[in-house]
């Protein structure tokens, strides 16, 4: 794994955990601790996403960029998200 892949993996992990907690809260809405954790993970994931996008370009078309660069290679099927 190169640095880019590691950062992407890190981002995937943080998003995944935030979503896990989101799903958990759907059935356990009274759990303040889980809510706090979810917000922390989301915050952290946003930070990492910002770092990734600053270094390697946008992840989604909705990213804040000055040009339409999210179509740049490599795409996932070209080894972009190994």
């Amino acid at each position, binding site marked *: *794994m190169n640095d880019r892949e590691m950062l992407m993996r890190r981002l995937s992990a943080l998003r995944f*955990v935030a979503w*896990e907690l989101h799903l958990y809260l759907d059935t356990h809405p009274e759990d303040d601790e889980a809510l706090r954790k979810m917000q922390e993970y989301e915050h952290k994931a946003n930070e990492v996403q910002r770092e990734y996008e600053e270094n390697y370009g946008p992840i989604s078309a909705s990213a804040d960029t000055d040009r339409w660069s999210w179509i740049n290679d490599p795409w996932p099927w070209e080894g972009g998200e190994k």
Partner: protein
Amino acid sequence: MRIYKDNDYEYQPRSPLPKSTPEAMAYVPFQQSSNSDKTAEEALDAGTLFNELDKPFMGMRINELNGKSGNFSRNENMRSSKGEAENDMGYNNGQEMEQDMGYDMRSKARQEMNNDMYQDKNYLMNDASALAKDEKDNYSQYSMDMGRWRYDEEKNRGYKL
């Protein structure tokens, strides 16, 4: 975001199963706990953040696990129904049953791998509170170490971890 409090949202804790369970219907016990001792990347690998839901596929028949040595412990929050399960299934004690079922072998292996790697280092993230601290360099370091270690391990073992 709205946080539900006792006074504005009457929340009834869910029991594992409904009171009434008509015959011939299947029931999935409700998740009871949000306990987790996984880092984000471990959660991604395991496919779940929660200890309670971490049920690794062992790929073996139960009798193939017989006789394997080791002290496999189940997660803390799964212990409640253990006594009943032991009796139901004719085991003499919990440890015997756990070994038989191969509970948490993968979790344990994962834990050991981490321990090996981070024995003398303090940058392993344990939970969200650790996340809150400034660890910008640390998580990058964690990722890189993990990646390199994984690459080496896979090379040595000759298969994907």
